[in-house]
């Protein structure tokens, strides 16, 4: 039973019915425990005071914003190369989730920065690149909505996603070059030895897990609805012929 078996829409529907309860349960647990632990049981940061608690929503949302675009890129490549409908529809289902995650990252980033930078919006490279990513999501969804034929819509949006990814990376460096960063160093970068102090670390990992599972749950549900819509239009097309 190779991985590509799940690419068949009907099989995917049955399979995801079994997986859905687990994923959604996991996401609820991780989210609740992670956020409550981070919100109530961690000390204030000596410099940032209680605003450090925003880390538990800003960092996971930012991570998910980037990873969901990456997932859409992979799904688009799979669609273009192997023509599996499920991956094209999964990319379509992931877009709104990625959009909202980017929005959350932007807003919480701005709120978190306000006490430090003294302004509601700072043209900080990282925040600005999330703004650019937000525009890419808008463009991607707009293109999906404006094409009737589902197959060419999947093709065109996949190509846009690939080209968009190249330009997203380009914009990331262009924005970095354009304004030296105000943003705190990467809280979770793998190369740096000292990450965030341990006491903040565990709840952060947990809320990240929560966001990841939430993303998976929403994308699973979204893909299932896209498959049903396609199925309905295919049935209608067949009825038209008889």
């Amino acid at each position, binding site marked *: 039973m190779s991985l590509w078996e799940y690419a*068949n829409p009907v099989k995917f529907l049955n399979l995801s019915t079994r997986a859905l309860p687990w994923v959604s349960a996991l996401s609820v647990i991780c989210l609740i425990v992670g956020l409550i632990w981070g919100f109530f049981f961690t000390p204030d940061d000596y410099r940032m005071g209680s605003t450090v608690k925003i880390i538990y929503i800003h960092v996971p949302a930012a991570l998910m914003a980037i990873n969901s675009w990456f997932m859409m890129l992979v799904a688009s490549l799979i669609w273009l190369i192997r023509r599996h409908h499920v991956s094209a529809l999964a990319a379509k289902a992931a877009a709104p989730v990625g959009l909202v995650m980017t929005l959350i990252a932007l807003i919480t980033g701005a709120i978190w920065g306000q006490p430090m930078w003294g302004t509601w919006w700072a043209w900080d490279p990282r925040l600005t690149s999330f703004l650019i990513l937000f525009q890419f999501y808008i463009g991607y969804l707009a293109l999906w909505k404006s094409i009737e034929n589902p197959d060419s819509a999947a093709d065109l949006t996949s190509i846009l996603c690939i080209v968009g990814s190249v330009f997203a990376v380009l914009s990331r460096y262009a924005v970095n070059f354009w304004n030296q960063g105000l943003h705190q160093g990467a809280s979770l970068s793998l190369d740096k030895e000292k990450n965030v102090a341990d006491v903040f670390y565990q709840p952060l990992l947990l809320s990240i897990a929560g966001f990841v599972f939430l993303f998976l749950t929403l994308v699973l549900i979204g893909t299932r609805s896209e498959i049903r819509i396609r199925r309905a239009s295919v049935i209608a097309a067949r009825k038209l012929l008889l």
Partner: protein
Amino acid sequence: MVLSVLDLCVSRSSQVLLANVSFELAAGQALILKGPNGLGKTTLLRAITGLQPALSGQIIAGEDSFAYAAHADGVKPSLTVAENLQFWADIFDNQDISSALSAFDLNELKSRFAGMLSAGQKRRLGLARMLITNRPVWVLDEPSVSLDKASITQLEEVIKQHLQNGGAALIVTHGHLDLGSSCRTLSLDRYKFNRGVYDDAEAFL
């Protein structure tokens, strides 16, 4: 065989129109495809010329052997007749546009702007473009639309001439085209597909 089509299946926006279409076309032959509107004749022609991917089946023909003429004949109103033809002559790198001009007697219209031509003259200019491509297999979609009697006989003459020097023609038309002995007719009705959706949308059922 200049062109052979085996079990071709063609769809439009994930709805199968024609399935298992098979026919062959030898040099010097013409084939007229008949069938009601909306059957998918244009889609079939576009699939054969490669403008549209077919669902399944094979199209065996020489490399770059198709010349396609459809309703939209690619005529630029702001260019003169000669400039229009010269553009296509450059693209298909064939320098001699005079034979095409005389074949459809557009000589005296040579320096007139295509925008000023009548519908019939514009059609003739679009068809003259076929000659310029000097490609063996002509694929014509309703070539005799908006042509008067005289132009139709002219069209028939040109096609017969093309057939004599080894070309082939695949024509979709409602009107009658008398192309002499080497012309067959094929009705596409029996390839009409009505058992439902065939193409990869089938995966959704």
